[in-house]
């Protein structure tokens, strides 16, 4: 047993209102700059729908994730490292910008600067890639709330895999939202795909990162990630991705997307797992067994043997305590209401989801069930609008049983708590029927419904005093071009070790600041905040005061 700690997230889709606040705060904080205009580390998709980038779940097309060979081993679907080396200069299998969307802006300043004319001034869309007028035909969230469903919905890869036909009819309508960030997988196919060794999984908390200095821009990670959560910065030529806001996590703050989630549906906490069993779990033969296999990799943080093993691995005491208080552990393993997204990709993703309930399907067209019996105040799971098969296509590789089990637990909680709410004696049978005790139902209820800040986010701070030892201080000379030069790696210059902060910073940031976007707003010298990286005062942010023009 090799105990490792993983910072993980659970999102309760049953509470998601699809507001996209997470997307906006994330983008504002991280990717509102040149080269990443189209990048949303966090996005929210309406399901059914095509997602972002379009049809990313169609691995037949995009070749992400792992496949199990006949011999029971895993290999990247897009091919192993050798194939990648062989094709390293070829166009990798990855979505084009049009599959994400062509980012644009508008010539807003025309609203103020238009001379007297025949018509009311207007701001026209301009491509942020070409600077030319453009016709907007796709966006970061084009099919929001089933927009354009007649044109796109049937291309939803999840829907396509369903045996049941879902009609585009008002009476049959269903939808829900799927917020997505990087999965920070236990078995990340992006890391395995990187020919430069620039992608890595942090040992202490499992956050998957791209070393910005080491990245050579091969983009194999974009192909390798089945969730398409590694992006290519077309300005720096490097891959970028969700960092799980490690500068915040390290000091005990939740990620931006979590703290700003007004649906209050995100949970952050540690999971202890057995690193020795990851490969085996990811390679189980039957896709339907992946959920159980991944759960089995997780270690009970209250088990004395696990605690002892964790201590042996040097996991700090406060981290062990945080793992014991982890809402993630409770939701995944105690209450078993959280499920992984597309376990069949075999990456062992670590952002899990509680599937959503939905309205009954028959009220709009007919009478609905009999309301005389108060027990039928809440409908049976089988009557709900969202097909179980659709949810199973997302969370359980098509096996509807685990999804149904979760929904039944949520429904049982509602029924049980209604009695408590109304001052009646709660029905222990309702809890027992879903394999829980009333006490467990009430505890789950507190975590899901009351959901206080300190219960949603249990984040131990990083032990910087140890980590620093391992980084710059110890090895500060050992970088490319430095006195302790380790030489170029096998994949070309600077595929070697990471470069210390001070050097990387200066060059990367100053170049980002000084290069103006070719496709900014139409007035020369003006900076659109979307394209500003938050550093310094780039020329054009404040136009020079033009005293000659001032009256």
């Amino acid at each position: 047993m090799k105990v490792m700690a993983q910072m993980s997230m659970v999102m309760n889709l049953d509470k998601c209102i699809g507001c996209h606040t997470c997307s906006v705060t994330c983008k504002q904080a991280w990717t509102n700059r040149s080269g990443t205009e189209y990048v949303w580390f966090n996005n929210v998709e309406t399901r059914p729908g095509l997602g972002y980038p379009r049809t990313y779940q169609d691995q037949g097309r995009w070749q992400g994730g792992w496949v199990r060979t006949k011999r029971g081993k895993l290999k990247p679907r897009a091919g192993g490292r050798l194939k990648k080396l062989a094709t390293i200069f070829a166009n990798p299998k990855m979505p084009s910008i049009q599959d994400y969307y062509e980012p644009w802006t508008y010539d807003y300043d025309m609203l103020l600067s238009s001379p007297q004319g025949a018509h009311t001034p207007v701001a026209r869309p301009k491509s942020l890639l070409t600077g030319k007028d453009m016709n907007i035909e796709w966006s970061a969230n084009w099919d929001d709330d089933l927009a354009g469903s007649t044109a796109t919905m049937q291309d939803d890869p999840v829907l396509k895999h369903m045996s049941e036909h879902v009609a585009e009819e008002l009476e049959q309508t269903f939808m829900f939202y799927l917020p997505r960030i990087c999965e920070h997988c236990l078995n990340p196919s992006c890391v395995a795909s990187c020919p430069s060794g620039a992608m890595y999984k942090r040992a202490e908390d499992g956050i998957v990162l791209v070393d910005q200095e080491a990245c050579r821009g091969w983009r194999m990670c974009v192909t390798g990630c089945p969730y398409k959560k590694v992006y290519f910065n077309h300005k720096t030529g490097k891959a970028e991705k969700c960092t799980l806001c490690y500068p915040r996590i390290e000091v005990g703050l939740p990620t931006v997307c979590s703290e700003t989630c007004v649906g209050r549906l995100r949970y952050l906490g540690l999971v202890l797992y057995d690193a020795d069993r990851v490969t085996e779990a990811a390679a189980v033969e039957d896709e339907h067994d992946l959920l159980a296999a991944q759960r089995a990799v997780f270690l009970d943080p209250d088990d004395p043997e696990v605690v002892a093993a964790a201590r042996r691995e040097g996991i700090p005491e406060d981290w062990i305590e945080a793992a014991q208080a982890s809402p993630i552990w409770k939701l995944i393993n105690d209450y078993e209401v959280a499920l992984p997204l597309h376990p069949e990709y075999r990456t062992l993703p670590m952002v899990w989801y509680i599937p959503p309930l939905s309205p009954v399907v028959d009220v709009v067209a007919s009478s609905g069930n009999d309301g005389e019996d108060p027990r039928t105040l809440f409908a049976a799971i089988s009557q709900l609008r969202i097909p179980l098969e659709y949810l199973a296509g997302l969370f359980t590789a098509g096996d509807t049983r685990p999804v149904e089990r979760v929904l039944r637990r949520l429904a049982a909680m509602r029924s049980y708590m209604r009695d408590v709410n109304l001052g009646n004696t709660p029905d222990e049978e309702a809890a027992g029927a879903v394999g829980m005790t009333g006490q467990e139902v009430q505890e789950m209820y507190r975590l899901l419904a009351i959901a206080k800040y300190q219960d949603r986010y249990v984040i131990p701070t990083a032990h910087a005093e140890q980590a620093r030892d391992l980084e710059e201080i110890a090895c500060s000379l050992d970088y490319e071009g430095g006195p302790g030069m380790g030489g170029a790696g096998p994949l070309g210059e600077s595929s070697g070790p990471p470069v210390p902060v001070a050097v990387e910073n200066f060059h990367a940031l100053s170049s980002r600041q000084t290069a103006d976007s070719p496709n900014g707003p139409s007035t020369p010298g003006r900076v659109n905040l979307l394209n500003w990286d938050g550093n310094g005062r780039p020329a054009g942010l404040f136009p020079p005061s033009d005293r000659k023009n001032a009256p």
Partner: protein
Amino acid sequence: MKLTSVATEDALVRLGRHLRRGEVSEDLRRLYLEGGRGGDSFYRDRWSHDKVVRSTHGVNCTGSCSWKVYVKDGIITWETQQTDYPSVGPDSPEYEPRGCPRGAAFSWYTYSPTRVRYPYVRGVLLDAYRAARRQGHDPVEAWAELTADPETAAAYKRARGKGGLVRATWEEAAEIVAAAHVHTISRYGPDRIAGFSPIPAMSMVSHGVGARFVQMLGGTMLSFYDWYADLPVASPQVFGDQTDVPESADWWNAAYLIMWGSNIPVTRTPDAHFMTEARYRGQKVVAVSPDYADNTKFADEWLAPHPGTDGALALAMGHVILREYLVEQRTPRFEQYLKQYSDSPFLVRLEPAPTGAPGAYVPGKFLTAADLSDDVLPGTSAEANPHFKPVLLDSRGRPVVPNGTLGHRYGETDEGRWNLDLGDVDPALSTADLPGAGTALVALPRFDVVPGVSTSSTNGDSSTSGDPHTGGKGVVVRGVPTRRIGGHLVTTVFDLMLAQYGVSRPGLPGVWPQGYDDPAPGTPAWQEEITGVPAAAAARIGREFAQNAVDSDGRSMIIMGAGTNHWFHSDTIYRAFLALTTMTGCQGVNGGGWAHYVGQEKCRPVTGWAQYAGGLDWVRPPRQMIGTAFWYLATDQWRYDGLPADTLASPLAPGAFAGRTTADTLVESAQRGWMPSYPTFDRNPLDLADEARTAGKKPAEHVVDELKAGRLRFAVEDPDDPANFPRVLTVWRANILGSSGKGNEYFLKHLLGTDSAVSAQESTPDRRPRSMTWREDAPRGKLDLLVTMDFRMTSTTLFSDVVLPAATWYEKHDLSSTDMHPFVHAFNPAIDPPWQTRTDFAAFHAIARKISAMAVDHLGVRHDVVASPLAHDTPDEMAVPHGTLADSGVPFRERHLVPGINMPKLAEVERDYPAFAARMAALGPLTDGVGMVTKGVMFSPDAEVRRLGEVNGLVPDGPAAGRPRLDRDTQVCEAILALSGTTNGRLAVQGFEHLERRTGRPLADLARGEAGKRITFADVQARPTPVITSPEWSGSEHGGRRYSAFVVNVERLKPWHTLTGRQHFYLDHDWLVELGEQLPVYRPPLDLHLLFPDSPALSGSRQPVVEPVESPEAEVVVRYLTPHSKWSIHSEYQDNLFMLSLSRGGPNIWMSPADAARIGVVDNEWVEAVNRNGVVVARAVVSHRMPEGTVYMHHATDRTVDVPIAEASGLRGGIHNSLTRILLKPSHLAGGYAQLSYAFNYLGPTGNQRDEVTVVRRRSQEVRYS
């Protein structure tokens, strides 16, 4: 993969293991690195920032979310939500975090290219002004000169909205604005100046400073709540209250929740979680929405009525509840509640039906103490205000005037009796509860039949052939139990309710539904024909709602909003909703009752804000106008309307509206002083004061004499007389031309005098208002000056003459509150206003100083005759006994005119214009000298004013010498907080003690524990601060409980501010009787084609579409709805690049696949929607979540972003309101009587827009922009 190649790869990785410090897993699949703190310093560096500042967004969503604004290197970088709200308690979710994607994208505006950085003036105007100045004119003369020249004036007005804004200095721009004000006051009168800025709560100082500026000048502040159609007129009608609703954390307490026309994930984004979480507590959730709206996702059940038919569904649910819970059995909780807290037991006189229903009666007026003699009602002759003391019967059949009626609210004799304590009186709910009841037939109107066919019969329901959605007239005849009291045939309101809802009882005459499946008015089957909602579902949801109220002691709640409140007849829809929450005893209960969320706000420190904003510390009364009527007249929409008022009338109407248009009812309402009317007369009110002085008369006497002599007329009678034009309009914190302006194209045509897409014809002579002067040539360009302060470019700035650059919400100090949460918190500047931007506070003071300087020569000290309406919460509301108009139909001049009784009150006030600026910047003497009144509660803030003098300092000299200073925004924040009960415990206690004397009930204990609490600006800067329970509102936060409306009424027996002092099912004002709306009744959406022949006709039944139509001429006529958008707050944020990137990047029209197929449109193609009012160009969004026959264009789609030239007009495609037009409903204009009396934003005609229809067609896909 070959074995060898695997081996090669592995070798590569093993090599890497030696080169890197990381650790590669044994299977070589994963690379672990310790730390990572070095390699990704980019992100760590990016996250760093210099400071975090608390502020919020002054946007009209009433969210009032507290935010962290990050600043780095002196630049605002981004924002995230604050999470430090005080706790709701251990067993509830918290308010953290509050915010939404719109708010999260706000900082984009700070440095965006749409930011207004400098003052701008329309070039054509600026040239003319400078030319006049060069000729030696002073600013006021120059303004007079250029506006008097018809060609010059027309030239700059025609240029409006067509570019050509040029930069000016603040000095010059402010000079022009000041000169226009001074000239207009002098030449036309101060009431020709208007100001528009909505929702004080979203930034009280920014709103207040401009409102203070306008009103201290004598100008007119325009209402917005009614104008936005967000005011639920049913609230004043039923509760005698503007709107009072639970905070969102109280949704958590509901055990049954219906979301009815309110899409809270979109419109209440920060609050929606209380609903999603309450489901886990066993709350059942029902969504009622015609489309699969975002909130439907969370519902257990979805009911999808046809748009605008919600009233029928609510009535049918009420039918089930009345039958099963109040007739088949008397549910004790419901019965007791109705007896004590509703008008149900009160007696209504039955009058012989006028026409059409021989032998039947119609419900008339409440029986009052004035109707009875001493031998019937002992002691009645000694009662004060007997006309306002309605009567009920006790359980022994004796007539009783219970405590707490309107008549008890005023006068010394009834002090201590204005309460809901029934003592030992047990009211009889029904006259049938008493022995010896008689019976009578009552005729009741119905409006759900084929239009144009007026049917009636005495022995049954009229036929319902044809499409029942369209609104004709008919009569149903049903029976009620009766008694004779003092010669009057009476029954109870409860008995009338049962008749209205079609709930039969044994032994009553009339024709009744035979069961739920009998499609007679009121039943579930009846509503199914109208709404499309299955009858069984309607019955079941109604039953569940009531049963839950029984099981949970009243914790059944209806969240309702714009989807049901923006219709012409929304007052009837809402009355049907409110009947449900009242008849189940849910109102005034935590977790129960109505929860209206659209445009509602709660300026919690309302008393202090009102003092400041109204300038009430210096001059009273202010001029405050009903916005809808102002725009209706100013934009000449009245010339196209001509809606015959009697088309709206009941078939049983006495005929007060015969031969009149709805515009005529507006004229009468103004003349009677029911509604305010500014400009008031066709003469400068300053001149009226001078004339009176010259004539040696009191101003009121002079005005009455002039009116009677016919020498003076109300401006409303002749709005196209140049003397009656509004001349100067200042807009701030608002976008009237890109958002709320119903009839947008009429604004452009008549108010502004520029190009417009109006194609409607003016009314033909037979449809013109008979009480108004018709001028053959409609004026164009009534307004001389449009000034807008904004930080971004909108339609309003595009069409303005002067655009002043405003500070954003991250650049100023201010206060924020809402009714969604119980806190007050602060705006704070993250940076100082950049470029030449200024706060609204600084801008208005700069203009004020210029006005005062110019006033020395041009205005001096004048006197002003202010006409004001009969006001709610004052004895004015006893002006019209029984709401009966004895002189109805008598020409105005022939009436016996008495100001304050049957015409407006008239007051003379002094306007010291040279002292204006100095007074604006100081707290005047009336606040402590005369006191402050909110909703009839008196406050005497003497200690507070002294303290403000110490905190803010005193003005050393000048016209405001010795008064507390208000020359900085932070000082105003302190004043507002100090002068309100919600933020000053001493005043809360004082106000409650005042109420205790009136009610004779203990109340002050609700605030006494916090008597010493003084919330200061520093407190709210530090953290959102909970407010104190205060008589300014009807709920209680006492002991940390959640705020719910009317809790004090229910628990402390404080009366509602209505005629009976209870919640009203029944209204007996003459105009409500005329409309047939005494009781909740179903009124369908207007049939606009029937009412206006130039409006397209909706097709009734629809043929299925087999093949998409390819014809370029293909059109479809659809209902046109404008719900709130997910990607904007009104027009704010809809131009924001983040929001545009997350949606479709420009204006859209959502439509069903079937309608799209009818016109051959596929998703994202350009379409045009055209009707008589204008045209919009947008891209189609085709989705199966949309119902057939209805399209959505989201509310406040402005014309600034990606709007091409329209084929239909050759002009820039319009805004969502280019297809709408104002329609007045007379019931909103009724006044002078009890709860139907005027207060600002409390009562007035709504700017409803939901009944509109439009043609949609596919247009050429080759769009051009110029």
